[in-house]
């Protein structure tokens, strides 16, 4: 693993949204580096700019100012089609609300990035990706025939299928119960450990964030802290289907149900009272309140 060469490097990135007369400064100069093979959690209160940052990292949006180097390439100056290609080949994006095509089988959903990549043996690749997330027996199910956790696993399979370097997930467990959330974490840890995929995800829940070695905290569009976790939590495999266990078989040994690990730095007291996975109704209002505080 080349730890010296950063996979993601952003410098002084800002993002300003124009809402009529009002300017919303969602990011106010964020700089960070992510190296190949890292598993990173991003935390922060609602409205702190997490999604904005993820969208920029995911080439779904471009920064108002600042630089973004992805694998050495400058993403800032790219046109729409070039960005589409980056999204297609280098990045797999997982959304909080799954964003699967309705009335479309899991298989067809997972095939979608391959369609735009012009890949040949799409069916086989899509099935392989679905098996990797333990859904080999659900390939013909439509999203409405799957549980939330299963839908999110389909979405992860879709993010995986083009063999990207990075998976970005914006609150992937936000709409899931804790058991399903743990399954998702388990998959992320496996993908990170076995396939060497760099994973960055956003979460509100400290227990979820502690599955990583690195936690980045945002507040008011700025990096508040960038801390490492000594003993990351290992996602339990009890909730996993037997099929998935067979495929993602790996010797982990000791701390499957290990004790909660401790973050190296003290967690900011404000964030512990963060209202969890529920999207705040009026982000702007809350933003104002925080700024006033």
């Amino acid at each position, binding site marked *: 693993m080349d730890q010296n060469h950063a996979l993601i490097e952003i410098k002084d990135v800002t993002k300003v949204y124009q809402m009529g007369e009002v300017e919303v400064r969602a990011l106010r100069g964020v700089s960070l580096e992510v190296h190949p093979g890292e598993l990173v959690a991003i935390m922060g209160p609602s409205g702190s700019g997490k999604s904005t940052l993820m969208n920029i990292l*995911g080439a*779904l949006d471009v920064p108002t100012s600042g630089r973004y180097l992805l694998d050495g390439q400058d993403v800032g100056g790219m046109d729409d089609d070039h960005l589409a*290609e980056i999204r297609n080949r280098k990045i797999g994006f997982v959304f909080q609300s799954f964003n699967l095509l309705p009335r479309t089988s899991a298989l067809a959903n997972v095939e979608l990035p391959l*369609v735009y990549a012009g890949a040949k043996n799409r069916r086989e690749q899509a099935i392989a990706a679905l098996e990797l997330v333990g859904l080999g027996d659900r390939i013909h199910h439509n999203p409405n025939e799957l549980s939330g956790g299963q839908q999110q696993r389909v979405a992860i399979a879709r993010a995986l299928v083009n063999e990207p370097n990075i998976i970005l997930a914006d609150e992937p467990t936000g709409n899931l119960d804790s058991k399903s959330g743990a399954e998702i974490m388990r998959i992320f840890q496996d993908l990170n450990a076995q396939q060497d995929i760099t994973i960055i995800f956003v979460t509100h829940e400290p227990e979820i964030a502690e599955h990583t070695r690195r936690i980045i905290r945002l507040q008011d569009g700025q990096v508040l802290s960038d801390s490492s976790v000594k003993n990351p939590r290992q996602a339990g495999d009890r909730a996993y289907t037997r099929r998935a266990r067979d495929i993602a078989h790996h010797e982990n040994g000791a701390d499957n149900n290990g004790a909660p690990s401790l973050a190296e730095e003290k967690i900011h007291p404000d964030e512990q009272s963060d209202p969890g996975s529920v999207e705040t109704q009026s982000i702007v209002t809350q933003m104002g309140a925080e700024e006033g505080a």
Partner: protein
Amino acid sequence: MSIIESFRIALRALSANKLRSILTMLGIIIGVGAVIALMSVGQGVQQMVTEQLQSAGSNLLIILPGKLSDAQPGGGTQRRPANPLTNGDWRAINDPLLTPDLIAAVPEVDGYADVSHGKTTLRLNVTGTNDVFPNVRNYAVQEGRWISPEDIAGQARVVILGSKVAEELFAPGDFPLDQTIRINGIPFRVIAVMEEKGGGGFGSFDNYVFVPFTTAQQRLFPYLRSPRGEPTLSLILAKVVSEDRLDEATAQIENLLRQRHNITFLNEDDFSVINQADILDIFGSIIGVMNLFLGGVAAISLLVGGIGIMNIMLVSVTERTREIGLRKAVGAKRRHILTQFLVEAMVLSLLGGILGMILGFIGAQAIASLSEDLQSVVTLDAILLATGVSTVVGLVFGIFPALRASQLHPIDALRYE
């Protein structure tokens, strides 16, 4: 992404909203259907006219009284022009010394009369003609004998029945030959039944009865007289030696009749000599006008249909904003989204076109079945035109919604509620 892939996606999207898709296609279906139906019928009419003219022989001239250009609709052979064609005119035209390029000329006196046998009475077209009529018209007797020169000289009360007339007047086992029928109350002896022909201008020869022209002039239609009291003819048919002598023969007839009718240098003819090409021209211009009118109707209907497609595609783009956002998020480029929606509009329009075509052909068949001589003709032109036009309509009216879809920003589209 291949074009087949795009078609599959389009078909899926359209079948998700079947009723809406069909209603959207309706404009195209009606437009294309109308064009195809009338094109097929028009072709059929043209083909029927051509066939009938050809069955009469391609080197035939028809001489009509009056100028064709001032012919009135519904006039035809029934009107009484100031200077009608007379037996003398026919005899002159039939003279090989005066018209060397003609083989024969045939007089025709046409009129409607009540034809009855037993209890059956039919109102039919009675044609008075002479002995060479079958040769000139390429029309043969099925049973019996045709009118002889003696019948003409003696104004014989003999009649020849078209095949259909024989069927209708006589019961199946009843043999018509030598039986007596009445025309306008006057008894006539049946001397022949004609072969089945199908044709003869407007209405089939099979519905005609034939008598010697002298008989028709003297006994049946004595009121058909020139101002000087001579018996008149409805028309004269002339058979030219060969097709390449048509112009010469026409000139010979025209000169002869101008002399006979005392028409001086600058004055217009009071008769018309027409050939098949002329008739086809007349039909051609009628069909041309019809096509123009049709084209207008079709264009309006396609415009309305196209706007319907554009409308539904805009709705569809709005409804599927999140889908578009997602497709973009996983790597769809602008042209992928553009193609997807353009193909969808085209499939919508093309399906409408195909359904319209099928409907049009069925409609044409229905119209054609009203007349037994008429057959609707399906041409490759019509199929290509309908396919091409509906594809173009889809393209033209689909481009704007498709462009709109392709320009959506992925994040904005994904956030759309």
